[in-house]
């Protein structure tokens, strides 16, 4: 039997197969087909020549949702809200992070004012009906929606995180009168308070739903035609999968599925190497992503904001998203000078097209890839599996723009670009670790993406991690991570309880309710596992008077008020350097993650008897940044003997990336073929 994971990226569609019999992994790549991504899926499966009857597990990761949003290609959407509040979607939170700008802008809401409607209804902050829902007034709204060719409607009422009935009734009424429209109710997606955030989440779900529905229907049909009949699952942003049906209902939960899968890949590496505490570091073409995994569990957040930057408030999406920091520094990031003459790298990227100057596709700006070529790290003849040769002359021409301004030679200029980019990367790595109260010495750094292994040793050294691990296929990290992914869904409810009134039975009953919701979710979805469900319970808590909360994970053993409070004090201290032991505490939001405990692929050890001499490709001059210029031996990863130990400085080349090991670091190749650097 074979497990199959497919990851559709902007440029390539990656496929990873895991043969459960012999424990072997194989990977395939073909060009993505943006106009209909399902064609790329079929192409890649055909390329692999797999016997489709043998496929026992199918997981899909893609960018349909995020692309539809960022390219503004969703459907015409309307919003229905409580009387008096249709402008909430446009007012947003009124914040102005671009604070020294006399022409400040807000993001444009995804529903125009003319399609934001109000109905008479009101529920109090206690969840009681103050004004009953006036269903008849929906008739006129439905007429206007039909006239305006609205394809999707979001419904969000005040305090619906407490009282969901009105949203449901409204939805049922519209369904009857306007059956062809797609409907999203906010409480179906999130039961957390904050009206703008919930409205925006519902609106974005509605905005992409018809598109995602069509896409998965089409894909399902094509997969069936190929003879694949196992259940189909889709990767979500929360680090788990859902059935295609689940994805069709709540497409917004897929918004950041790619990065979440990558983090799962790091967890899998951790499982194989017996490391529970991991800092995941992934450098792609345009961005770097960092995440922290504590005790084998990635962190999830509901504070995610799409298109957020230092100067843009972005769009909040209140669904669980694997907590990671993403910055604009990747292989294609462009080096430039700001108005004060300081060298900057990114966030502008040359992307894949035209790409870095050395791609010879018309790019003329100096990028990190060009800099890595000039510093000798990248071999121009062995880039992207040797699919095309990099042109060093073009890289030199581009880097010279930086060299001439700085008044230095080409190698120093290229090395400066790398240092500036790495300074940004280290800030991101610190943000997920030191700045959240974690000591990097307790963690290993797992590097993924085409660029990760080129920077990991330098950054790992500065961060002070215990070890750096480069798994095989680092360029296929997301697909690889999906192979090990459980089915998962998250449930949460806001309910304020003060510590002095807290009753463990009340808290248990809240969790029981959430467990019931979770069980129903798994039962009502055909392709989901019915039996094994693992529950993780977390509570957002704070000191009375605070607004922001700290999330505390509670295990069965700790189901005792005093114990929970004790954990909270410790977590607060970890996050904010102090605790207030005599202040009363509030329980705010109760969270439950339910997952099937699907069997993990058992990757077999691959110990070999290769000879080290056979793996040596050449010796070349490489600039190791702050560690200077060295004549480094270059090894071929595919021929490295397992169990070997080699001292840096050295370079390991493979199809999709290059690993750079510094002087005074030692490389070991373990029995899984992982590169382990200390």
């Amino acid at each position, binding site marked *: 039997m074979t497990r199959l994971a497919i990851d559709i990226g902007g440029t390539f569609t990656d496929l990873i197969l895991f043969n459960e019999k012999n424990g072997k992994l194989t990977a395939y790549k073909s060009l993505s087909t943006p106009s209909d991504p399902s064609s790329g899926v079929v192409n890649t499966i055909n390329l692999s020549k797999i016997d489709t009857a043998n496929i026992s597990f199918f997981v899909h990761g893609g960018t349909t949702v995020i692309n539809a949003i960022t390219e503004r290609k969703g459907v015409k959407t309307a919003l229905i809200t409580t009387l*008096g509040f249709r402008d909430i979607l446009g007012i947003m939170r*009124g914040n102005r992070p*671009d*604070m020294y700008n006399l022409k400040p802008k807000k993001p444009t809401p995804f529903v125009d004012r003319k399609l934001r409607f109000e109905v008479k209804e009101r529920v109090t902050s206690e969840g009681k009906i103050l004004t009953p829902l006036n269903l008849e007034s929906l008739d006129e709204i439905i007429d206007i929606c039909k006239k305006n060719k609205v394809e999707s409607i979001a419904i969000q009422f005040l305090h619906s995180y407490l009282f969901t009935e009105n949203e449901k009734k409204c939805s049922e009424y519209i369904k009857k009168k306007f059956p062809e429209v797609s409907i999203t109710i906010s409480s179906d997606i999130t039961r957390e308070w904050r009206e703008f955030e919930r409205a925006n989440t519902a609106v974005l779900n509605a905005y992409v739903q018809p598109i995602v529905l069509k896409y998965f229907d089409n894909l399902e049909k094509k997969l069936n035609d190929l003879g694949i009949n196992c259940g189909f699952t889709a990767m979500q942003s929360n680090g788990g999968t859902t059935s295609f049906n689940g994805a069709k209902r709540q497409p917004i939960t897929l918004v950041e599925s790619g990065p979440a899968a990558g983090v799962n890949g790091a967890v899998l590496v951790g499982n194989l190497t017996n490391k529970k505490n991991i800092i995941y570091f992934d450098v792609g073409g345009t961005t770097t992503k960092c995440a922290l995994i504590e005790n084998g569990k990635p962190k999830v957040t509901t504070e995610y904001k799409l298109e957020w930057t230092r100067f843009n408030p972005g769009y909040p999406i209140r669904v669980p998203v694997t907590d990671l920091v993403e910055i604009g520094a990747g292989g294609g990031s462009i080096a430039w000078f700001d*108005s004060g003459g300081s060298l900057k790298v990114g966030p502008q990227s040359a992307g894949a097209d035209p790409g870095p100057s050395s791609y010879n596709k018309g790019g003329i700006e100096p990028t990190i890839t060009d800099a890595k070529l000039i510093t000798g790290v990248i071999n121009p003849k062995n880039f992207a599996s040797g699919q095309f040769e990099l042109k060093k002359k073009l890289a030199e021409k581009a880097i010279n723009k930086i060299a001439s301004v700085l008044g230095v030679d080409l190698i120093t200029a290229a090395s400066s670009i790398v240092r500036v980019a790495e300074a940004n990367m280290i800030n991101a790595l610190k943000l997920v670790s030191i700045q959240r109260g974690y000591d990097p010495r307790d963690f290993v750094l797992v590097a993924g993406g085409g660029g990760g292994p080129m920077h990991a040793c330098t950054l790992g050294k500065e961060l002070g991690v215990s070890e750096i691990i480069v798994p095989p296929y680092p360029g296929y990290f997301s697909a690889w991570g999906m192979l090990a992914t459980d089915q998962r869904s998250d449930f949460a409810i806001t309910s304020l309880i003060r510590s002095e009134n807290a009753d463990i039975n009340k808290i248990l009953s809240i969790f029981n309710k959430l467990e019931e919701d979770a069980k129903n979710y798994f039962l009502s979805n055909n392709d989901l596992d019915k039996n094994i469900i693992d529950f993780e319970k977390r509570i957002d808590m704070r000191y009375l008077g605070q607004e922001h909360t700290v999330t505390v994970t509670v295990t069965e053993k700790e189901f005792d008020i005093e114990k929970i409070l004790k954990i909270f004090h410790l977590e607060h201290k970890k996050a904010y350097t102090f605790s207030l032991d005599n202040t009363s505490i509030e329980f705010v939001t109760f969270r439950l993650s339910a997952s099937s405990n699907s069997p993990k692929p058992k990757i077999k050890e691959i110990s070999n008897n290769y000879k080290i001499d056979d793996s040596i490709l050449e010796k070349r001059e490489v600039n190791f940044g702050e560690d200077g210029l060295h004549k480094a031996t270059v090894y071929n990863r595919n021929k490295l003997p397992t169990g070997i130990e080699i001292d840096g400085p050295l370079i390991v080349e493979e199809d999709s990336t290059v690993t750079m090991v510094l002087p005074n670091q030692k490389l070991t190749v373990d029995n899984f073929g992982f590169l382990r650097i200390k």
Partner: protein
Amino acid sequence: MDKVTLDIIWGKLQATSDEMGVILAKASMSPVIYEVLDFACGLCDNKGECISIQNGITIFTGTFTSDVQIILKKFDKDINNGDIFLLNDPHYSGTHLNDVSVIKPIFVNDKLIAFAIADAHWADIGGSAPGSISPQASEIYQEGVQLPGVRLYKKGEIQKDIIDIISSNVRYPTLAIGDLNAEVAAVNIAEKRLNEIVKKYGADKVFTTFEYLKNTSEKISIKAIQNMPNGIYEVEDIIDGDSFKEDPIPIKLKLTIKDEEIEFDFDGTSDFSESPLKCGKGALFSQIKTVFKSVVDPHGFSNEGWFRPLKLKIPDGTVFSATYPESTGWYFETSSYAADLVWKAFASIIKNKTSAGHYLALSPSFLYGTDHRNNEPFFALEPHCGGWGASNDSDGTSGLIGILDGDTYNYSIELFENKFPMRCNQFKFNTEDGVGHGEFRGGFGLIREYELLCDDVSFYCADGRTKTKPWGIYGGTEGSNNYKIIRSNGKERKITITPPIKLNKGDTLKIVTASGGGYGKPENRERKRVLDDLENEFITPEIAQSVYKLKDVK
């Protein structure tokens, strides 16, 4: 010295200030800090000059330098490792007494290298009214506890006496001490980070970076000023009365650009005010710096270097230069008028980086009493968003926080109703009072209405731009006014400035903020924009016809 290393250290200093801000926001106790984010954090060098400030709000842009310089002057040789100082000086340096600075000198190997500073608005610091900024206060003594640079920690030892004095003089000691804790956590984290930076790069490189970043910023400023035409630009405006008199208060600015310098001369500004609608020179200069930074380089990291070419001229005792012991509680409204003058002067010089006038300041509402649901006291201080002005290429933004704040959030209604005994009846764009029309129109203000759910709630406020309106430019028309409406026993009254008054169950308070000014002549507005506004009910068919000359409207 290698310039790239200096830039990298600069980036780390900025990351330190930003991290301080995150710690302070998340650990604080009062909504005005954690929800509204009325605070800032940063670093000053050992001469007291600000070298980095968190991307948070603008009003503290200029106050950090003078805050630290007060400490340096007062304690001179007696600044020790482990000391932490408290300061709230509204006249020379700062804003109002509520803004309490926590300042920590940072030592490496017994050498003073820098200061970490956190300045946050405490919900209450004592004085005559809850919230401490009574519109009736005529002297600083009515506005709360003064902390003229005192030690909270002495060589690492906490001075409990100070905490006792503060706790017994403020109304919500748990909030105050909670916020103080959060500020201390912020400066402590800065100390840790700065030590890590010095350990990696050495103190010399870090010192060189301090000079480098100020000089780099100064150079950009100078270049920008050289690109502005030399000349004298005079603007004037009116403050619409204060809490004691309704008479207009004239304000004036003469801005002189000469080669590499700009002088801001406020001579002719009125000294007419006993009320706390005044600001000290610290807040005034901060506002000037904010607007200047906006027209020079909105995205560069802020520090004192940017502002070296600026000269301020103003006699003591005006509404922009209050002196001890005058009250300054409502400095934010008054100093925003100063920002507005500077902005207006620059608007005629630099078209592409400015816009028409905005709703001005925060028009906050203060509401307090006892919550009937739990019999606990509550205090709801809320700044409100308003309309911004139009510019050369776009309409003004609607419902955005004023110039002196920044990454400041409005209060979620669902949270607000849980926390306070009030219900929100509507929250929407203020399309009722009109807007500054033009080729590009102003942004809309907001309407937010509360219904009281219990008796005996006190309310006070003191709005700006209550009679004069946000200015239009190049043929664009004026915006609208800020005001509040109270409806009690079937009677409505309009309020702009009031000392604490009582509201009861069932009464409503409607908070209305102004819309921004327009840019360019309305008849030049693109037809599509007019039609969009009409369709989205931002303007009426009458306006479309009469102002925008749209003919074939149904």
